[in-house]
């Protein structure tokens, strides 16, 4: 389910519009991940707090969103562009790939909250596909 040229343009356009709010959305998305899917807190047991809205969660959400923005810039070859991030997730972090889908869903929820007019069904499908491709690229080195 690779992105068409039009969908790549849609993704770049929407992420451009989102840029001023990307930190908020990233922080909020990770907060929602641990709120809606509490089992995901298992990856953050080493933090002082992994509860929704806590400082470490928000900070890490911003970091992750930064990675997503970086991936937008590498949208034409995500596999190659995300190679080192994939190695990190495969050998060090070892996040079960099912969680990428869960976080993607939380990101989509936040995007639709903050940009209800712009997040049309057409934008939704393009961004959903992009996040799925991103997740696939992150899984590349898993096995």
């Amino acid at each position, binding site marked *: 389910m690779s992105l068409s040229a039009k969908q790549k343009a849609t993704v770049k356009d929407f992420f451009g519009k989102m840029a001023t709010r990307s930190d908020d959305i990233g922080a*909020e998305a990770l*907060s*929602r991940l641990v*709120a*809606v899917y509490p089992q995901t807190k298992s990856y953050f047991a080493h933090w002082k707090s992994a509860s*929704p*809205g806590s400082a470490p969660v928000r900070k890490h959400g911003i970091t992750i969103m930064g990675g997503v923005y970086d991936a937008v810039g590498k949208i034409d070859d995500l596999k190659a562009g995300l190679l080192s991030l994939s190695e990190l997730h495969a050998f060090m972090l070892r996040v079960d790939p099912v969680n990428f889908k869960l976080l993607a*869903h939380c990101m*989509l*929820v*936040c995007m*639709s*909250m*903050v940009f*209800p007019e712009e*997040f*049309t*069904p*057409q934008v*939704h*499908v393009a961004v*959903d596909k992009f996040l799925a491709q991103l997740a696939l690229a992150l899984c590349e080195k898993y096995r």
Partner: protein
Amino acid sequence: MVEWTEFERDTIKDIFSKIDYDVVGPAALTRCLVVYPWTRRYFGNFGALYNAEGIMGNEMVANHGKKVLHGLDRAVKNMDHIKESYCELSQLHSDQFHVDPDNFRLLADCLAIAIATQWGSAFTPDIQAAFQKFLSVVVFSLGSQYH
């Protein structure tokens, strides 16, 4: 038996008393058909569903979206007996409509997003968690009679 906190019960009742069924139902089903195009396989008699524009303007899709959303009413009224409430509907979806139950999960995700577009920041993480827990119970119940 599913255990609900008071917050979850209140939240579910609150959500369903406030949402506009005529907006959210169609919006959710429309998103599902656009974002997960394979779900169109179940609506062959709805006319031209070839692209987003066609789906978004389709009256049958809109009416069906309202119907599906109202299908959640029985769960809202019967939160302690959701599985039993959906016995018949589950059989129907299995034996008559032959819907892959994974699609219920996809529609549930689209419902969460449809409400998020309407409510904005009022759709807090706690409310989202309660709503998605409720939907996952309905999704499970709708799949329970498949064989």
